[in-house]
């Protein structure tokens, strides 16, 4: 071995200091001088203070080609260049916070509503109070939607990206075959109808819900509101813990899961799979955002045509959700003006006063905008597939849904991150409904205090 190595070293020229310096000296010189030469030849040394754009925009990957097209249309009209970057939806919250913390400058970004006030407080997003036309935009919103975009102190923190309401998707044919004349109007009726459908042998687990950990918090509010329970008071206190009906909601959840009326897999299933379960006729009920009806219909399964929408419960409210657009921290007035123009176009109306972006989203995926005028706009009416009852949807937005203002509080993401663990423990039978109430109340209190794990 040693002799071979010696022979090899004798054959190969040794890399000595002189040889190395000789070989690399020229290269280093070029590398050092290159940028200087290039900059001397290239840029004319224009002023760095005047804002020339482009606007940087960050969104998540829901129909990325559509996002780029919509923005490109605006760019062509306004003359402002926009750099659009798209990140995966899963993990978006972590990714954008990491980027902003690392010093990335993002002028306009999609955000989850529950992060919006936190982003203002951290200085990553700016308020929109003084921008031209903002008051008209706020006035145009459903009254029920305003608290998502305006803080109790009157700060306007975001504009809508899209909005939706939690609804019950049900299979009309299965209901009829099980001898049921109408969809359920209470949680108790939902349980009874699920049992009737299972007993009739139509499907073994008729009720599917998006019960993955990350999403349980939305369901928490959907079902609390369905029972007329106020989750948090104006000061953010978890008053749901004082309402005796709350325990009943958790008993209902646990019963649905433990009795197998919801399949075991719902703890991990994504909405795509759940939509397919409805389309294929493997489930009769599905609670999620109204626009999943489009997914179910587009799947063109044997039961797709039989799936319709109804309110989660008839007497009370449902959760109105909406993700938002926020303006990044940018002090340059010229930049703010340009970003605001893009925000108005993307989150409200175009230059001609039409909901052109929302119309495209409605056409593509059944997404809604939290503006009453949206539901009566002829372009929008035409864009929505005819299986949507727009007057029913509009009514749910108007008076049948709430946004839960606490969901935009700066402390809320901490609470949101903990709900899934507790709800899963409930569903798996590891804790009682009573313990669930207590643990969720503790999670809310600790989120507003020092945090904790």
């Amino acid at each position, binding site marked *: 071995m040693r002799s071979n190595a010696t022979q090899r070293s004798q054959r190969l020229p040794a890399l000595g200091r002189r040889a190395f310096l000789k070989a690399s000296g020229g290269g280093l010189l070029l590398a050092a001088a290159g940028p200087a030469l290039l900059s001397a030849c290239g840029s004319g040394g224009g002023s760095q203070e005047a804002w020339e754009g482009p606007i940087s925009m960050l969104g998540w990957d829901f129909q990325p080609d559509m996002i780029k097209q919509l923005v490109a249309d605006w760019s062509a009209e306004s003359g402002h260049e926009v750099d659009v970057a798209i990140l995966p939806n899963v993990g978006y*919250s972590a990714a954008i*916070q990491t980027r902003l913390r*690392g010093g990335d400058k993002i002028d306009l970004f999609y955000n989850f509503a529950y992060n919006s006030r*936190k982003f203002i407080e951290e200085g990553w997003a700016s308020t929109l109070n003084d921008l031209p036309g903002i008051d008209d935009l706020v006035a145009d919103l459903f009254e029920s939607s305003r608290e998502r975009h305006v803080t109790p102190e009157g700060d306007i923190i975001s504009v809508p990206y899209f909005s939706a309401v939690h609804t019950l998707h049900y299979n009309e044919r299965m209901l009829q075959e099980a001898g049921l004349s109408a969809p359920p109007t209470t949680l108790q009726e939902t349980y009874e109808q699920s049992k009737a459908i299972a007993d009739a042998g139509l499907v073994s687990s008729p009720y599917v819900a998006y019960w993955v950990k990350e999403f349980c918090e939305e369901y928490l509010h959907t079902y609390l509101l369905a029972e007329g329970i106020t989750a948090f008071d104006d000061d953010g206190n978890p008053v749901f813990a004082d309402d005796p009906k709350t325990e009943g909601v958790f008993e209902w959840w646990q019963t649905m899961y433990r009795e197998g009326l919801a399949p075991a897999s719902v*703890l*991990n299933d994504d909405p795509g799979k759940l939509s397919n379960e409805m389309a294929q006729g493997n489930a009769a009920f599905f609670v999620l955002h109204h626009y999943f009806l489009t997914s179910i219909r587009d799947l063109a399964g044997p039961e797709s045509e039989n799936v319709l929408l109804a309110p989660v419960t008839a007497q009370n409210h449902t959760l109105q959700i909406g993700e938002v657009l926020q303006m990044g921290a940018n002090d340059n007035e010229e930049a703010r003006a340009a970003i605001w123009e893009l925000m108005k176009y993307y989150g409200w109306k175009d230059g001609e006063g039409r909901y052109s972006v929302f119309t495209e989203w409605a056409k593509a995926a059944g997404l809604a905008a939290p503006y009453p005028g949206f539901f009566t706009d002829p372009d929008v009416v035409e864009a929505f597939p005819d299986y949507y009852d727009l007057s029913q949807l509009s009514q749910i937005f108007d008076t049948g849904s709430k946004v839960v203002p606490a969901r935009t509080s700066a402390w809320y993401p901490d609470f949101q991150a903990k709900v899934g663990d507790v709800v899963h423990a409930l*569903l798996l039978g590891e804790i009682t409904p009573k313990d669930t109430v207590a643990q969720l109340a503790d999670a809310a209190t600790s989120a507003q205090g020092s*945090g*904790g*794990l």
Partner: protein
Amino acid sequence: MSTTTVRASRRADTPAVRVGPLARAARRFGVRMVAPSALLLVVLLAIPSLLTVAYSVHKVPSNGASLGEFVGFDNFAVVLSSPVFWSSMRTTLIFSAGFVVLSTVIGLATAVLLNQEFVGRSFARALLIVPWAMPWLVLGILWRWYADGSVGGLNSLLLTLGVIDDYQEFLADPTSALLLTIVAAVWRQASFAGILFLSGLQTLPAELNEAAELDGAGIWGRFLHITLAWLRPVLITVTVLNVIYAFLQFDVIFAMTQGGPGDATQVLSILIYRQLFVVTNIGLGSALAVVLGALALVGGLVTVKLLYSSESR
């Protein structure tokens, strides 16, 4: 054998080399060549480590504008007094034990098998690299689908083998979810261990086994006293690496279960991710990271100690 004796014998073996100015210059040149990359490595390891320790004793603002208020060991107190932490610690230890033992044993068994003469051995050896070449995250997504209760191949396989009598939702059950995340991670790590063991086995002189066989040693005796003894340095390296990989495992588990159902697969690295990147409680997340780092370090050192002490015996 004392240190002095070793030095003396080495000196005696080594031919005298006259160190002149040229040789000294060449040595200095070598040091200078290595210095930038060595410095880069130190910086890349040291700065984040020191920052994490510094963050762990501060209440750091989410926006990273400053280090924030010094809070001493408050973050550690919050961590150590939290039942969530201890539950996660228990899960981490169970996961790590399963991961280390299975990936080491399966890796060793695979290497021994692939060291035998059989038709298609080269192809089988090439296949060994496939799991290792797969990113952890992709592996997690694949296993998630494989374990799916409706369309996954695992149910079909177990049904055919008669292990189960109906399709199961493995990832919705706390015990089987933890077990499956271990199996998925082991699938990749065992191939890495197998590659290292195989390279060690290829340096084992065939005469040793032949001589032992002539002396009447059985298969188990030869494996224990020749193969395993020869592989001991590799075994130490593999085990220590496995321990470190086990404690730092994140991608596979996150892709398969996101730490669920409930907190069944919520290992410490997932808890850290949640604190650092979702809730952005940098101080608390860093305190957790320091604890996990210490755990991995202690785990690695204890493994080295145990394996070296068994070697000296």
